[in-house]
């Protein structure tokens, strides 16, 4: 589904991604871990098409497309969803209006008619239940005045609404209490099908108690320095990252 080969990216001349390689297949869940500042969010942004970052080398193939050729909105319509580490507020734009616009734009891209209002509302009601989203949250402006937890839940709600093929969740677990964490993880698990895949970026092993990854990768200083199965997460929890960093330095 997604194939990243030797990806290098920089911002303002400073290299952040220094040769990333990653293969993600349908039905897989990949966890990416690593210390702060190692480039996890940058990788997510580059995959989503943020042009703040310049790709200097490498290739990314997604469902047979050269991903780097597509605009951010094309990538979204082709099924890439990014759950933001810091969701953005848009004052005055209601969640309902935002989601309706997004969903219908994506449908248009696929040559589908816009959803009727009643179908849209039905779809929304279902997804709200799935992520146990507070009813009146969708009538409020996008992320405006949402608590940290509400913002994260709202990202999962949007993912549920848009039904992506590849979801990249950037520290969706940070700042969540254990109940919220369970709800978020539950949402992710319920949306899992043999056809879609997710990349879960996290700091903490605890999320991986709920979302069982097929692979765990450690990103450090712009490179994936170690990959393994879910046991790697436990090892990291126990030993931290230092033993790996040393390995890199040597």
């Amino acid at each position, binding site marked *: 589904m997604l194939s990243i080969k030797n990806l290098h990216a920089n911002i303002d001349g400073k290299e952040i991604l220094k040769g990333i390689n990653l293969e993600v297949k349908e039905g897989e869940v990949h966890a990416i871990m690593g210390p702060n500042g190692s480039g996890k969010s940058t990788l997510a942004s580059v995959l989503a098409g943020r042009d703040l970052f310049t790709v200097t080398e490498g290739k990314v193939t997604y469902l047979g497309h050269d991903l780097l050729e597509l605009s951010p*909105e094309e990538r979204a319509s082709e099924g890439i969803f990014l759950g933001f580490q810091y969701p953005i507020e848009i004052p*005055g734009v209601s969640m309902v209006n935002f989601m309706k616009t997004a969903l219908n734009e994506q449908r248009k891209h696929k040559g589908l008619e816009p959803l009727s209002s009643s179908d849209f509302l039905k779809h929304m009601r279902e997804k709200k239940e799935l992520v146990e989203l507070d009813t009146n949250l969708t009538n409020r402006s996008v992320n405006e005045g949402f608590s940290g937890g509400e913002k994260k839940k709202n990202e999962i709600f949007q993912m549920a609404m848009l039904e992506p093929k590849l979801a990249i969740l950037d520290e969706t677990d940070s700042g969540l209490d254990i109940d919220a964490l369970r709800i978020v993880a539950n949402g992710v698990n319920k949306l899992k099908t043999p056809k879609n895949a997710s990349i879960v970026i996290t700091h903490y092993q605890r999320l991986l108690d709920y979302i069982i990854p097929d692979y765990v990768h450690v990103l450090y200083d712009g490179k994936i320095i170690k990959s393994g199965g879910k046991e790697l997460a436990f090892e990291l929890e126990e030993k931290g990252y230092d033993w790996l960093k040393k390995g890199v330095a040597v």
Partner: protein
Amino acid sequence: MQLCKVMEKDQDKILHEVTQNEYKYGFVTDIESESIAKGLNEDVVRLISQKKNEPEFMLEFRLKAFRYWQKMKMPTWAHLKVPEINYQDIIFYSAPKQKISGPKSLDDIDPELKATFDKLGISLDEQKHLSGIAVDAVMDSISVKTTFKESLADLGIIFCSFSEAVQEHPDLVKKYMGSVVPYTDNYFAALNSAVFSDGSFCFIPKGVRCPMELSTYFRINAANTGQFERTLIVAEDDAYVSYLEGCTAPRRDENQLHAAIVEIIANKNAYVKYSTVQNWYPGDKNGLGGIYNFVTKRGKCAGENSKISWTQVETGSAITWKYPSCILLGDNSVGEFYSVAVTNNHQQADTGTKMIHIGKNTKSTIVSKGISAGFSNNSYRGLVKVTKNATNARNYSQCDSLLLGDKCGAHTFPYIEVDNKDSIVEHEATTSKIGEDQIFYCNQRGIKTEDAIGLIVNGYAKEVLNKLPMEFAVEAQKLLQISLEGSVG
């Protein structure tokens, strides 16, 4: 530093992409018109009055205004760069040629004119009106057709062109014209009073709620012509009316002058709601052409408990100079001003309001949302004045500015004069930018940059757009987006 540069480049790109859209009302109607020679002098003023077959009092009014104007100088206090206007190079009267003069049936109207208004989305055919809006359609110097006049007359409502009102209801015109905006008020008010050619007149008698929206649609068509119209709305005790105004003009390289007056009188318990969507040709991307829009709009809450509410969406014109105001004379009277002003490319706007509190317990609300893009300049200028006897007056003002890109300017000039210590005046102001992160967030959900900007801007202006009548609100939303297309970042 480097980072800033990268982001600037992005902004430029987005700005560039979004500002490419063209003004879609820029076409010219090919119709024969009757114009007088260019230039302005006393004979021209007399000629206009004569063409309109006006009673003596009108000619006197015009001449007094003209003589007054001749002694005046163009005001320079606004935050605008206004090129010198050569009044001898402007045609002051131009009318599409018509078979008959005066009120006419649909069949008497030139099909070309009908088609023009159809193209603008304004049907002159009453049968085609589902939404219950009566229209006075004005092209250049004259009113082409007023719809639903007869059915409104059954309720005692007078809705007709200003010229017709002068002929049919001279006493009302004489009583109210100039009572809110005297010709001595300012330079452009004096000019308008001397040379105005048409406009709308509306009178709602005591106790009548006007059952449909009344509207005037102004269209400039002829080249080198100035448009000077005048609107007068009178609501007697307990009357209600909602009034809409729209305007467009062809795309031309030369600037054209528009100087209008709107006067509103609201008597006891009356409520007048006046909404404008101003979309005169704004000029091209490089600032060539466009309308110079100098307008004096003022309402007088003459009676107790009366209310006047201004809502404006200003997207057009190369230069806008406009301050719809309320004189709150009656006790407990209420004045409101809700405004969205968008400037793009090289447009300049200096707009706002004056709320003059004279009666006791008077209340005013000001909500102004400025949006600047491109190389434009957008200023809010507002005066809140509470006179000595206006005990317990209240004002709340909120002035927000939104910037798209970093080559445009937003300015706020609030003036507050309070002579009564039992009154409360509150003022809030914010300035923000559309963030590149907001646009990316929308992009990531599948929304294109242009649509994202439309969404964000409409969200920002929502409080004002919500005040517009339904049919207008949808139009205005689209207009906001179109005005910023090719310009936003």
